[in-house]
């Protein structure tokens, strides 16, 4: 085999070699939990992200998920004050983030940052950069309890950025929800901002955990009334309130608002985590996965 | 003598058709109608008498002929060249003032024994209109042998003459013949509610006849287009007068009927009298009539295209009304003949219908006369007549 050797370019056109016995200092990490995402919040990156979301994200989401957005009027009281907001949603699919990015209205849509799992999204430099650019992701440590992630998030919220976070911590493995973790509630209490519970229904059918090819279906995004922690609420109790709110929204989406309110007041809202039964019975209780449902276009007499 | 003559000239007839379509009444100028110097007609037998017309009215059928709108059905019952004019009041040689019954039935044609229709007094249904010693002709305004009203001299059979009472003016007398048509139409209408479509001369006289003769149990609705017509319709006895486009709604509310999807009424009015005879009016009449009712075609229709499905589904009768019935010498003994003319004379006298003569013209201005008659409604007129009493111009009475 003939090997052609590429001509070696001299330093400084090529990288230097390190003398023996010396060590180079560690540069800024280009992946992982300490990846610095501040560049993604400067104007050029923000412009690029806005263009990406509107020009690419919207049509793709509309084609794949055809989302029906309900409850946007509940966000009206928040518009007056102009403070940042934490959006807490349930998590079934990677599609949740694009759906939410295109559903959350102004003025929060373009001042939004998402908390993303450090061990998944920030594994390599390429995925880190893409995540930071596309969804303004900020790494969160899932496995270790770390104050640094929390501080980073709190700093950004105090600076006026709204947070999109999935309190479950990861996508649902089997179609039912996982118990909510305390991050969102903790930040709400610490920074004094409201939490808007959001329920996303249907993305699990499109691209659930483990699959690669999406199957288009219709989805529904339901926004709930903003929640503020009561004076005597600590992060844990507030977290329970948030979880119950999302469960009530799930009930509202599944049946109707009135029945959901009645069950909520009676304490009978069905939980997001599903029945306490193993294996097939949990899957059985999920119900029929309906195929692509053409959402009924609203048609009533035009008189 | 001077007379208006309608001759057989196909080219001019075609021109009349075109001109008449562009503007009603223009056929008088471009068509085969012309003012000529002709010899007066010869009496076919010794019985026939001369009549010198004083006033001769212009009828809707005359206008249709002049504008080339009459049906080919008439080809066999008309003989060219003829002088139009069948609404005539004139003088005879022995000084009587008479109105002429224009129908040329068996008695006038010398047909003996008379046909069954004439024997029953139904001269309007005479079966011998093209036979006998006269040329073919339904009436004396369409027959070569007899002459017609639009001239200074014509001939008539004694059975055609009706004396005019002295108290009637010429204007009133000239309306006797059209009133007789209206009376004949009114007799065939029942006593329920009636709607009359069209408020020209024939329509208004029909309204008057209906009000006078029939004891109507329901309202009399008239559809009139022009303000003068509306005024006349109200005066002559219509209960409700509406615009032509509003007739369906007026019928709906007076008969309390419901409406189906296409705007069709579920009920309707028992009798509809169509005094216009156009496609639109017949279609409207069929739309307004109640199930089992009758649509009376009084105005002469032409060749029209009508959807007969509602007629079939709702068991509606379409009934034509032509001319009138008068007593004839061959009437059956013991049967009281219907005398529409006598009733017409009575009606004209009672209601002073001579007021409906809006204007008269001398023969020389026949083109203006025909144009005025064709646009009578829009110009606030009802009946236009030729004044043959002198050559002096007569203004509106």
């Amino acid at each position, binding site marked *: 085999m003939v090997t052609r050797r590429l001509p070696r370019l001299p330093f400084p056109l090529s990288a230097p070699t390190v003398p023996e016995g010396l060590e180079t200092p560690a540069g800024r990490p280009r992946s992982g939990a300490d990846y610095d995402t501040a560049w993604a919040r400067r104007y050029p990156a923000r412009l690029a992200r806005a263009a990406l979301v509107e020009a690419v994200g919207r049509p793709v989401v509309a084609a794949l998920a055809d989302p029906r957005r309900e409850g946007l009027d509940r966000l009206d009281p928040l518009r*007056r004050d102009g403070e940042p907001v934490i959006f807490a949603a349930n998590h079934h699919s990677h599609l949740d983030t694009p759906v939410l990015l295109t559903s959350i209205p102004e003025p929060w849509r373009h001042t939004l940052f998402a908390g993303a799992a450090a061990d998944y999204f920030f594994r390599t430099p390429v995925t880190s950069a893409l995540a930071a650019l596309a969804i303004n992701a900020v790494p969160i440590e899932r496995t270790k309890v770390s104050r640094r992630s929390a501080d980073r998030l709190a700093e950004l919220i105090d600076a006026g950025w709204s947070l999109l976070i999935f309190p479950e911590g990861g996508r649902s493995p089997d179609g039912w929800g996982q118990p909510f973790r305390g991050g969102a509630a903790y930040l709400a209490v610490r920074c004094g901002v409201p939490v808007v519970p959001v329920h996303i229904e249907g993305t699990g059918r499109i691209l659930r955990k483990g699959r690669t090819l999406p199957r288009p279906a219709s989805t529904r995004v339901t926004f709930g009334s903003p929640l503020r922690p009561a004076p005597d609420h600590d992060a844990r109790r507030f977290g329970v309130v948030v979880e119950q709110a999302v469960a009530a929204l799930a009930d509202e989406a599944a049946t*109707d*608002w009135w029945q959901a309110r009645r069950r909520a*007041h009676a304490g009978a809202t069905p939980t997001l985590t599903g029945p306490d039964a193993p294996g097939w019975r949990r899957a059985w209780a999920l119900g029929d996965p309906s195929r692509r449902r053409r959402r009924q276009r609203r048609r009533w*007499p035009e*008189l | 003598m001077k007379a208006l003559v309608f001759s057989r000239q196909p080219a001019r007839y075609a021109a009349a058709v075109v001109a008449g379509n562009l503007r009603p009444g223009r056929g008088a100028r471009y068509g085969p109608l012309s003012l000529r110097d002709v010899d007066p007609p010869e009496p076919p037998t010794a019985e026939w008498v001369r009549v010198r017309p004083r006033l001769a009215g212009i009828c809707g059928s005359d206008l249709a002929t002049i504008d080339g709108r009459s049906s080919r059905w008439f080809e066999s019952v008309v003989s060219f060249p003829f002088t139009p004019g069948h609404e005539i009041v004139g003088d005879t040689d022995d000084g009587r003032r008479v109105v002429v019954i224009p129908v040329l039935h068996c008695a006038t044609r010398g047909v003996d024994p008379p046909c069954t229709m004439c024997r029953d007094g139904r001269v309007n249904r005479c079966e011998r209109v093209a036979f006998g010693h006269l040329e073919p002709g339904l009436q004396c305004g369409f027959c070569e042998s007899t002459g017609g009203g639009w001239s200074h001299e014509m001939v008539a059979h004694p059975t055609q003459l009706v004396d005019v009472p002295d108290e009637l003016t010429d204007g009133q007398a000239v309306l006797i013949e059209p009133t007789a048509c209206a009376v004949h139409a009114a007799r065939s209408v029942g006593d329920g509610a009636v709607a009359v479509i069209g408020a020209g001369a024939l329509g208004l006289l029909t309204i008057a006849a209906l009000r006078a003769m029939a004891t109507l149990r329901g309202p009399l609705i008239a559809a009139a287009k022009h303000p003068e017509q509306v005024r006349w319709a109200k005066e002559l006895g219509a209960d409700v007068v*509406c615009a032509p486009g509003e007739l369906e*709604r007026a019928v*709906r509310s007076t008969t309390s009927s419901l409406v189906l999807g296409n705007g069709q009424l579920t009920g309707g009015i028992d009798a509809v009298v169509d005094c216009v005879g156009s496609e639109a009016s017949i279609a409207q009449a069929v739309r307004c009539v109640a199930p089992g009712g009758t649509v009376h075609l009084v105005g002469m229709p032409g060749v029209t295209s009508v959807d007969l499905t509602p007629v079939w589904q709702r068991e509606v009768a379409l009934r034509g009304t032509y001319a009138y019935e008068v007593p004839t010498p061959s009437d059956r003994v013991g049967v009281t003949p219907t005398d529409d003319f006598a009733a017409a004379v009575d009606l004209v006298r009672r209601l002073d219908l001579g007021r409906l003569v809006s204007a008269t013209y001398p023969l020389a201005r026949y083109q203006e006369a025909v144009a005025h008659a064709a646009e009578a409604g829009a110009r606030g007129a009802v009946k236009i007549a030729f004044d043959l009493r002198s050559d002096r111009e007569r203004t509106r009475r």
Partner: protein
Amino acid sequence: MPRPGFVLDVDRSTPPILFHHGESFRLEKLPAGRSRVLYPGEPLQALRDPDGAIRHALDHPLGDSEPLRALLRPGMRLTICFDDISLPLPPMRAPDVRQRIIEAVLDLAAEAGVDDVHLIAALALHRRMTEAELRHAVGDRVYDAFAPDGLLYNHDAEDPGNLAFLGTTPDGEEVEINKRAAESDLIVYVNINMVAMDGGHKSTATGLASYRSLRHHHNVQTMRRSTSFMDRHSSELHSSNWRMGKVVRDAGVKIFQIETTLNNDTFGTSGPMSVLQKREWEWSPRDRATFVAMKAGLDRMPLKARRKIFQSWRAPYGLTSVQAGEVEAVHEVTTGNVFRQQLVELEGQTDILTMGLPYICPYNVNSVMNPILVMCLGLGYFFNMYRGRPPVREGGVVIMSHPTTWEFHPVHHPSYIDFFEQVLSETTDPVEIEARFEKSFAEDEWYRHLYRTSYAYHGVHPFYMWYWGCHGLAYTGKVIIVGGDKAAVRRLGFSAASTLPDALEMAQDVVGRDATITHLHNPPLVMADVK
């Protein structure tokens, strides 16, 4: 700080005044030295937290009433009635105030465990509301929760099985209302008080009534003695309704009344349409350019397109007050709030009253304004926007500006077409119309069918439109419509003029030369308090 309304005396430096002219606008110069223009106040500040205010009102009722929370218990029959599409005008931006209140009430009901809830649109003899209109009024959440099960519906005044006769007032007026409402344990009425005529006992006694009840106060005699029906204390209409309200109360029907008032921010204080609400001498160059462009565009558009644009406008009304509890106590506070926004003091009367009529009245939302509605809006509503005495003297002239096209919506207003063709062509005298024609229209089976199954106003409704203006008809000497279709205006019995100067010229025959003029400037609504 919103400025209050005031009276402008027109002088030579006054710019031309904006007149509403149906689906368009005109700028008219009023004669200097003898005209005055009544300008409404600027929109009052809306409540900062409407949902909180509503919750507060429900927990702190006025008058002899317990808080709503205490009135709700499991197993009860609850009926929530709300005002129909004739309020507010133009329709307001989502979320509608009715949606906010109904959701708050239902939340309390859910907490108390109430299962049997019906929601009824209290529309009396108005047309049924379509799905889109109901969704706009109560919101999608409530609609989707109740309508599919038939628990949210329109009141049907011609359904014999769903009417309850409650009794007669001492004056012999029969009181008959919706049966489900009458037999409920509690009626919660959600009202929007756009003008002082609305609300109070009228909500239930008229809104849920049938023809049998309504004819006792919707008649010529009552309307002639309502001078005006915007002032409850001078209105026979309201006296009758109050008597009926007492019968309803004595029959054991419990009503928790929730009344709201809105500011008059019809076209916004910022944005392209805000120029219409500004005082003419305060129009900035941008406003003027916007107006010129708008007028040019509108004039070139066909009527249908213009109508569509205007009918789709949603007003950014703000909630200025909400009060709940016992009917009469609540209504006192509500009328005070309505007057706070709309009432402007006026000294004395003039010879002529002018007004520009808008494209919308309570009876042609998403529809066509026919000539009868023009008369009702002008001589009925606008003429009666006064307290004390009318701004024009008796025998004076009223001049209205509206295109008055001879056009009717065939689905919404079928009985209006017959009324215009058959009744008005015979007579325009309200007394004669009432005597000769009202019964046959009220009992016509076809109109009844259309009212119950289609989206049509009841057969007798055009008569009510005519009666609404009968006080104006009797009071004024002449009515002139500027810029209207001549045949239609004449059918109404009025005079037609092409321009305002021509109309003022025509008015000279009645009021003489140098007549004084009052102009009601609208948009938005204004009410004259004449001393």
